[in-house]
């Protein structure tokens, strides 16, 4: 049943498939981010309490969500890499980590820029903020660990183990606003019952979440292809690809 998957364990096949998927994700990212930004910045009504400062939500929430989604992707890849010893899975972990780290950084910075006018402080040691900061450190740890080994098989294994250990942080981030009394507000969209946000504000937010998701996929694919090229650089197919122009 799953036999059709087998060829994709070969680097060349995966390289070609990701090359085919890439333009779709790039296109989706461009269209959704333009629609989402114009709608969110120009057409969504100002918040009755927060005024126009709430517009930071259109990058803050998508970045934070996709930072966690990237981690879930990495954890799945790490598990596959460790259990079935598929080296492409370890490469996908290495490809995703920098993207996840940048998204986490964006979530933290935009959160600070939102916190200053609303809470009166750029930073507070509240459970949500702290656990998000730890996520950034875990991402940086994974990137550092992967780059610390010149033997990339070993590097992939080490990074995968650290990725799986770090999974513990995900539920802590998500439930931090429930388990501790935090300055950060509770869940607005992902919860039981109706979202706690007006539809004219919610729609651009959902579009921006799609945009960030597509962007995450596009960049991960690009970095994954780089990773394959490095690791397979001695193979004839890479040599043919390099001399045969851009493909």
């Amino acid at each position, binding site marked *: 049943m799953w036999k059709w998957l087998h060829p994709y364990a070969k680097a060349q096949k995966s390289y070609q498939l990701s090359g085919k998927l890439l333009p779709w994700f790039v296109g989706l990212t461009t269209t959704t981010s333009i629609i989402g930004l114009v709608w969110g*910045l*120009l*057409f*969504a*009504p*100002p918040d009755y309490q927060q*005024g*126009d*400062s709430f*517009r*930071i939500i259109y*990058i*803050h929430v998508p*970045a934070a969500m996709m930072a966690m989604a990237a981690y879930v992707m990495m954890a799945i890849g790490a598990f596959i890499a460790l259990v079935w010893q598929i080296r492409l899975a370890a490469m996908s972990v290495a490809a995703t980590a*920098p*993207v996840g780290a*940048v998204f986490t*950084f*964006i979530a933290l*910075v*935009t959160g600070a*820029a*939102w916190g*200053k*006018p609303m809470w009166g402080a750029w930073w507070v040691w509240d459970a949500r903020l702290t656990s998000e900061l730890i996520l950034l450190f875990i991402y940086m740890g994974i990137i550092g660990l992967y780059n610390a080994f010149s033997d990339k098989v070993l590097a992939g294994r080490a990074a995968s183990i650290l990725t799986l250990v770090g999974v513990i942080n995900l539920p802590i981030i998500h439930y931090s606003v429930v388990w501790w009394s935090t300055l950060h507000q509770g869940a607005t969209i992902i919860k039981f019952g109706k979202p706690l946000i007006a539809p004219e504000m919610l729609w651009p937010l959902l579009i921006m979440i799609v945009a960030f998701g597509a*962007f995450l996929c596009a*960049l991960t694919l*690009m*970095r994954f*292809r*780089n990773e394959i*090229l*490095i690791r397979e*650089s001695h193979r004839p197919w*890479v*040599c043919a690809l*390099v*001399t045969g122009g851009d493909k």
Partner: protein
Amino acid sequence: MAFHSLVGFLHMGGYAFYVWLAYGIAMLSIVILVVNTLMETHKIKRFVKKRMLRDKRIQKAQKMEGAL
């Protein structure tokens, strides 16, 4: 439209500094990430090409030596 003029839009209801700071840094970090990724691709391809040319030169030199 939530704003009546360009100035009003840029002013962001008095939150201009915070809103544009957030959007600016997000944009900048995304651009850096994309540029870094593209440059890496370029660097890898150039490296492989260079190595191939070098290998070819070495092969040629060895052949010449054999002929002498």
